[in-house]
């Protein structure tokens, strides 16, 4: 077994017992990722000096015989829409190509306090808008399981980096499936926490009522450790909430699992369906009670999402104006750029990629005079109904199981030309963001060599239940949750 195969708990033990040093580990990871990144393009920036200085600090602490936190010396990667002070943060956009983060996001501050080691920033769909990481202004990431396929998106770089053992864990962000779907496509674990469980301070905003930061890890056990490290109320994010600690002990035999009939739809790959049904059967064998439930407004979740997310995005992205920071035509002294309006129009025309422009247009249209009630307000009302569907279902069951995606990882280039087909990739995940619920993707099988993820959805702030539910599968059927190692 190589050092880069280890999980957080294993590395923590190894560091404490001085089997290897943090610096040694960090150098092995840096060498490996510099080499392997040429093949999969998971990283946009490698923060070598930062990583080495963080690792040395840990070794000093260990040398002095002091206790170390559970994430001390653990090499991680950060999605490039989360700010790390004095490190470039591009959101995979030309408009932020040279943007240096002026402060740490709260999640980064928390990880630094634990002395975790930041290896670099990972690729994403521009401003986290997309399902394949092909919308990056700096080129697509490739799926480590099959280099001709996408890693999913938008946190594709983070998921690919964890799957290829280029870091022990990574941070992603999830607005409509952007942690869970790439985790599923790459065969790793990805958690979207309850809206408000993790501070969004320092996350480049996409759709503020849907965005959440969460961990992408090799195991559910690791996922628990990272989630506990980053969660909590933050004075810098007024939507953040302190999660209550659940006292009740998890027992698989008293677990009630709901399977919504609306999630086995036309167009779903029969092979994926088979893997998901197989996983559900295994939970039944372990003693859980399975029942069919109904979420009647399921088919409206995606159209609802594609009003709300672009509307919020069009407002959030108004800040990229070529004046305060980011790409600007103002300093170019072109003859055509005469006044302020020209600076706005030209900076945004040249700085934003195709998908961003499409979403800004969609959102601005939906919010514009005469259409607001027909689109945005209607979508907000449908959002209420979608949330109520889940509330009702959770009166009867503890967790809900669905597939993460209707298909395994698709080919690079397969869907990029047709926005609507690409949008359908989020069909099983977007509803969870609309309802604000926590959900995790765990690997439960493969279609040929391509990983398939099971989505476990929980009640608000009951991350513990979905993590325990995932962990029991991981421990009982270890052969299914193996991470790609090549």
């Amino acid at each position, binding site marked *: 077994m190589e050092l880069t195969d280890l999980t957080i708990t294993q590395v923590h033990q190894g560091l404490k017992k001085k089997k290897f040093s943090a610096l040694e580990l960090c150098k092995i990871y840096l060498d490996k990722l510099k080499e392997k990144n040429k093949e999969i393009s998971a990283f946009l920036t490698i923060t070598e000096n930062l990583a080495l200085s963080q690792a040395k600090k840990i070794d000093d602490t260990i040398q002095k015989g002091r206790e170390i936190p559970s994430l001390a010396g653990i090499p991680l990667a950060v999605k490039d829409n989360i700010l790390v002070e004095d490190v470039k943060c591009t959101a995979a956009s030309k408009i932020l190509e040279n943007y240096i983060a002026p402060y740490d996001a709260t999640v980064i501050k928390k990880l630094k306090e634990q002395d975790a080691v930041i290896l670099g920033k990972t690729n994403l769909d521009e401003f986290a808008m997309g399902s394949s990481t092909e919308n990056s202004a700096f080129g697509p990431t490739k799926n480590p399981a099959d280099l001709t396929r996408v890693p999913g998106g938008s946190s594709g770089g983070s998921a690919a980096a964890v799957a290829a053992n280029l870091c022990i864990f990574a941070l992603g962000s999830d607005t409509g499936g952007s942690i869970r779907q790439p985790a599923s496509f790459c065969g790793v674990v990805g958690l979207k926490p309850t809206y408000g469980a993790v501070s969004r301070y320092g996350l480049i905003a996409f759709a503020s009522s849907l965005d959440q930061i969460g961990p992408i890890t090799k195991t559910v056990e690791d996922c628990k450790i990272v989630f506990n490290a980053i969660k909590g109320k933050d004075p810098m994010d007024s939507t953040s909430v302190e999660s209550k600690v659940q006292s009740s002990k998890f027992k698989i035999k008293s677990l009630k699992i709901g399977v919504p009939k609306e999630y086995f739809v036309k167009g779903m790959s029969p092979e994926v369906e088979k893997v998901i049904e197989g996983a559900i059967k295994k939970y039944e064998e372990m003693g859980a009670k399975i029942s069919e439930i109904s979420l009647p407004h399921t088919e409206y979740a995606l159209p609802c999402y594609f009003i709300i997310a672009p509307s919020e995005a069009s407002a959030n992205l108004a800040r990229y104006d070529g004046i*305060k920071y980011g790409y*600007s035509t103002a300093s170019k002294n072109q003859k055509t750029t005469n006044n302020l*309006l020209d600076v706005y129009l030209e900076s945004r025309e040249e700085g934003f990629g195709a998908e961003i422009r499409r979403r800004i247009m969609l959102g601005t249209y939906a919010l514009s005079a005469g259409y607001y009630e027909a689109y945005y307000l209607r979508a907000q009302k449908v959002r209420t109904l979608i949330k109520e569907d889940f509330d009702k279902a959770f009166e009867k069951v503890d967790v809900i199981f669905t597939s993460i995606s209707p298909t395994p990882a698709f080919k690079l280039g397969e869907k990029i030309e047709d926005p609507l087909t690409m949008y359908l990739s989020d069909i099983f995940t977007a509803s969870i963001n609309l309802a604000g619920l926590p959900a995790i993707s765990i690997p439960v099988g493969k279609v040929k060599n391509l990983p398939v993820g099971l989505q476990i959805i929980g009640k608000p702030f009951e991350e513990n239940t979905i993590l325990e539910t995932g962990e029991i599968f991981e421990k009982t059927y270890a052969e299914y949750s193996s991470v790609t190692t090549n």
Partner: protein
Amino acid sequence: MIKKEEVKHIAKLARLGLTEKEITKFQKELSSIFDYIGKLKEVDISEVEPTSHSVGIENMMREDCPNPVETRFQQTAGKQSSKLLKLAPDTKDGYLKTKSIL
């Protein structure tokens, strides 16, 4: 189909420069996406309140006294503002500089 003029109007509202080719492209794309979104018209929403926020927090207040976060910010204010100004495309005497409005 969304009209060309409408696409131009929306782009202007969004302060987004578009090429002629893009205007035609968006006409087609936005029309097909809004056709799909039109599905929402099937839902009876007559007695439903809108949800803007899943957790339902309202008006977060804090004590009216200096808090540690703000104090931290004030202490590092000089450092912070010079960092922020360095990110701006054009500045003069510590201010952001813009082109003329008229």
